[in-house]
């Protein structure tokens, strides 16, 4: 809290690592709300970004608790408005549209009902359907702002139902004057969405990125484009649709095309763009000086533009026909496209904007058909705008199946700082926080910013409730490692199996194991089957395996939880970087032990990764190995952190690889894990590990009540106000 206040005072950015389950969210919320109350002019808004919908809901619950507390203590209604925002899919209350399952379809149908031209048509002809909720919101919603309070997604829906207003647009409209906004990363980081949703958030806001250990990857994904052969074929089809629509329109109603043309000639920026419902197609980031320029003459008329698109599409198709892997820079691509099909850089840069203008003019309400063309137009705009920090990789086939032709063009962003830069520049304080951010100094480097505060916190615990251990060898003294050279070695695989069997015999309830990749998981399980280890394991616990199929995995998870709940006990074999390792908590009996088999390095042969490593090395002086280790260790830490979700929780963390005990790996673990990792536990054999865990489990299984924590990790109001404690706090504040 102290560090956070420093950062707020300094109006700078900060990077905080706090163990999960220690009240991270509450701390952030309560201090920022208090700060907002004390300095209403310096700090007007809190934007809280989280990853998933359940996480957003959790934050809203915390906030509701906080508000209730305020009300109880202050004795009056608080004038603070907080709301959550999610996609249309989660907020729609239209009777038929909300039945749709896929987000894209919901967006498309919503657009078809609420776009400005559809509504204009509706005004003339009642048969054209519109969304009544949106009409209601548009008629009345803007005059009556949302009363202060806490609104999560369900509250918004209820409110919308009661008033007959569309909750999605209500929420989007309310963002501008709400005090606290909770939504997903993408609304701020993805330039395509950010421009629409978050444009009007004022500079004096605090932005919090929670669970931000993967923030660099989110940034990169939001700026990258992947083009496949199938996508290009679809593009050709939709260009044909465009052509026919234009010729139809020319015959029937030339006026609109003319009007658009005039506007483009005048070089006016689209006046329509302000209309909120037409935002289904948006620009990737463009420097504003370009946006102010007029659209170049080569793509001013609709036919010319379609011919232009056709050339772009055909050109990309020819590029996809290569027989070998090509890697080139955007500059090289631009030169080649100029030579081959005579396309200059400037019109290319306007592709996305011109395309969205065309779609609006043609009044096409079903956008789902055009999503491939949207992708291509984004690609064209990005490739001509950014010459640095991007690379183009064309692979004619996958590495694993070199005979199957499956050409893919990757336009990959290498610099994660590009997407997040506007956020850092615009807001006075950006807080990046997660349970596992170690090593902290890497993030400022790869995101290219200067934090004023950068701290890793530990937990104050009444008992040693985590037990990290590094197991480096089996009982037969063969070193355990997932190194490439030894991963096929039967002795290593058997030792891993024995470790799991013995741990399963000693540890109650649930055990979660993480492997480095799906491939490795499968080979190991099959050889365990041959060696009879699976049979031994099943004598103790049930076995569940994560697969690449999401539905299968969630079924396995449900049954795993069931098995743990009824006391049968279960083992879940999963993969680091998979679905289980991110965002699913194994608190209390669901995860009494986590085993990490091997160091989860990324697949280093991937060309995109190679290109990124090279870029990091050249641009930020980060060595390849440093980044790879950093990435592997943050994922390992993320996996380990799954079992620890609060102060009353306890769990064993076993790192089963010889290389973990090296200083460069060990020092990259989060501080709260390192603290409990004693030197004596760094080079254990299977048997020693089991002995230690047995003793520790016996200790942990003792009843643990609130009184035990009092005075150590939990303070009553009296204890907090005692002179001794006050002095301690004062000292800490002085020292910092």
């Amino acid at each position, binding site marked *: 809290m102290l560090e956070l206040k420093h950062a707020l005072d300094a109006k700078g950015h900060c990077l905080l690592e706090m163990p999960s389950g220690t009240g991270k969210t509450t701390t952030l919320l309560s201090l920022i709300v208090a700060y907002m109350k004390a300095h209403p002019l310096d700090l007007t808004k809190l934007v809280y970004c989280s990853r998933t919908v359940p996480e957003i809901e959790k934050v809203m619950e915390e906030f509701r608790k906080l508000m209730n507390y305020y009300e109880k203590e202050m004795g009056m209604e608080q004038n603070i408005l907080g709301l959550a925002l999610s996609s249309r899919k989660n907020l729609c209350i239209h009777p038929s549209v909300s039945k749709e399952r896929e987000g894209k379809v919901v967006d498309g149908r919503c657009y078809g009902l609420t776009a400005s031209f559809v509504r204009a048509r509706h005004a003339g002809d009642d048969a054209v359907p519109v969304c009544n909720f949106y009409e209601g919101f548009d008629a009345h919603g803007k005059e009556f702002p949302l009363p202060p309070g806490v609104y999560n997604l369900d509250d918004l829906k209820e409110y919308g139902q009661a008033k007959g207003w569309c909750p999605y647009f209500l929420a989007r409209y309310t963002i501008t004057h709400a005090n606290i906004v909770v939504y997903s990363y993408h609304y701020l980081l993805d330039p395509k969405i950010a421009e629409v949703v978050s444009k009007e958030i004022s500079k004096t806001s605090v932005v919090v990125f929670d669970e931000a250990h993967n923030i660099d990857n989110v940034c990169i994904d939001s700026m990258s484009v992947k083009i496949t052969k199938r996508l290009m074929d679809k593009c050709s089809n939709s260009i044909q649709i465009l052509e026919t629509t234009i010729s139809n329109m020319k015959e029937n109603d030339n006026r609109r095309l003319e009007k658009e043309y005039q506007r483009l000639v005048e*070089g006016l920026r689209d006046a329509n763009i302000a209309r909120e419902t037409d935002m289904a197609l948006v620009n990737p980031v463009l420097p504003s000086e370009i946006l102010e*320029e007029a659209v*170049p*003459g080569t793509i001013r008329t609709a036919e010319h533009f379609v*011919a232009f698109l056709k*050339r772009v599409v055909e050109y990309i*198709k020819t590029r996809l*026909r290569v027989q070998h892997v090509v890697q080139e820079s955007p*500059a090289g691509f631009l030169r080649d496209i*100029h030579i081959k099909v005579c396309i200059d850089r400037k019109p290319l840069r306007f592709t996305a904007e011109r395309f969205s203008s065309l779609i609006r003019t043609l009044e096409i309400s079903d956008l789902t058909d055009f999503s491939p063309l949207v992708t291509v137009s984004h690609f064209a705009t990005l490739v001509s705008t950014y010459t640095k920090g991007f690379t183009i990789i064309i692979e004619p086939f996958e590495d694993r199946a070199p005979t199957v032709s499956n050409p893919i063009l990757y336009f990959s962003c290498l610099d994660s700082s590009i997407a997040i830069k506007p956020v850092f520049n615009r807001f006075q304080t950006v807080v990046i926080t997660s349970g596992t951010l170690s090593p902290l100094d890497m993030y400022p480097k790869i995101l290219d910013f200067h934090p004023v505060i950068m701290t890793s916190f530990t937990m104050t615990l009444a008992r040693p409730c985590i037990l990290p251990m590094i197991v480096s060898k089996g009982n037969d003294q063969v070193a355990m490692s997932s190194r490439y050279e030894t991963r096929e070695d039967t002795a290593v695989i058997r030792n891993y199996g024995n470790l799991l069997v013995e741990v399963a015999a000693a540890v109650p309830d649930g055990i979660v194991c993480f492997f480095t990749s799906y491939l490795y998981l499968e080979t190991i399980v099959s050889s365990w089957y041959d060696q009879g280890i699976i049979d031994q394991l099943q004598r103790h616990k049930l076995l569940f395996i994560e697969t690449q199929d999401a539905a299968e995995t969630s079924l396995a998870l449900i049954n795993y939880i069931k098995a743990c709940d009824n006391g049968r006990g279960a083992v879940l074999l999963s993969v680091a970087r998979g679905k289980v390792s991110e965002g699913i908590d194994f608190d209390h009996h669901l995860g009494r032990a986590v085993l990490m088999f091997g160091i989860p390095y990324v697949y280093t042969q991937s060309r995109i990764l190679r290109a990124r490593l090279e870029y990091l090395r050249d641009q930020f002086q980060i060595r390849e190995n440093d980044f790879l280790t950093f990435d592997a260790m943050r994922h390992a830490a993320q996996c380990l952190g799954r079992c620890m979700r609060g102060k009353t929780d306890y769990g064993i963390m076993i790192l089963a690889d010889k290389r973990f005990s090296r200083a460069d790996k060990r020092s990259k673990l989060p501080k709260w894990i390192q603290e409990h990792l004693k030197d004596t536990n760094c080079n254990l054999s299977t048997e020693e590990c089991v002995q230690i865990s047995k003793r520790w489990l016996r200790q942990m299984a003792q009843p643990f009540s609130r009184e035990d924590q009092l005075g150590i990790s939990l303070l009553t109001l009296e204890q907090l106000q005692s002179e001794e404690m006050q002095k301690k706090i004062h000292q800490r504040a002085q020292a910092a």
Partner: protein
Amino acid sequence: MDGNDQTCPKCKTTKYRNPAMILMVNACGHALCESCVELLFAKGSGACPECKCALRRQNFRIQLFEDPAVDKEVDIRKRILKEFNKRQEDFSTLREYNDYLEEVENIIFNLVFDVDSTNTNKMIDNYKKENKDITMKNRNRQSQEEIELEELLEAEKAQQSEKANSYVNAELEEKKQKHKAREKLIDELMFSDADAKSIVASHVQATAALAKEQPKAAAQAGGPVVKSSKFSSGIQIGLRQNTSSFLPIPKQQDLPLFHYSAPVFDYNGPSPPAIEVLGKLKYFANIRAANATERAGGYTEALSCCRALQEAMGGLFYIPQSGHKTAVAASAEETDDMETA
């Protein structure tokens, strides 16, 4: 899947049946497979089987795009853009330039879809006449954008090779250093009498200090390593120049001017006669005259004669008391001087 549905309209061969089939297109934008082209245009010219327009065999090119219409368009476009190559700099406002671009686009469109071709051709001819000199001028000039791109590519290339080298070197260096440090530690442990613990401790400290230094060094190395494609004066390395600016004239340095003065020789003896007067003094009477081949090489008898005289007379007044060593050095110098003279 990949282009397997391509069919030759004449012989109906598909890419699937004959993977080696190559489609060709001509000015009309209709495709034909290679063998059909050979068959139909054996005489060198003929009619397109689809649109019956007259074509020449030479003009057949391999079809680059899936849609032959695009091939045709690109072809026309390249031809037109060769003529219509005005740049933004040639217009006073952006609006005019954009209008011009649209005009060009219209012409191309008309040609591609054969709309109003007589008028269009007339327009092109008019334009050609009117703008001959600008066209010629622009043909040799790259547009600003192209120059920018070229520069970027060049810089990228230079950076890449430079960086790769430097990092490989740095890594090697580091490995060597580590190896050395380890050996040193082992040596010390083997031969020194000091406490093993203290030796290890000092070693650890030394490596830590080294590790601290290294990133700094790396950062430093990272800075200047970037070999730019420019000189420090801002002039581009290589031929291409920014067309707008001239080469800055190198600044002259104000050094004192050179004045020639004839070298003065101290023969330390009677001065020998000058080379020009040797003939008059009949010195050549006693030596062999240079033959034709020697004279062709630039040798005259005067040279050797003069040299012999100088050697004979130099140092005649020399008095040995004045120090042996210096005298030898001096005489050596004299002969040197004489040779150069």
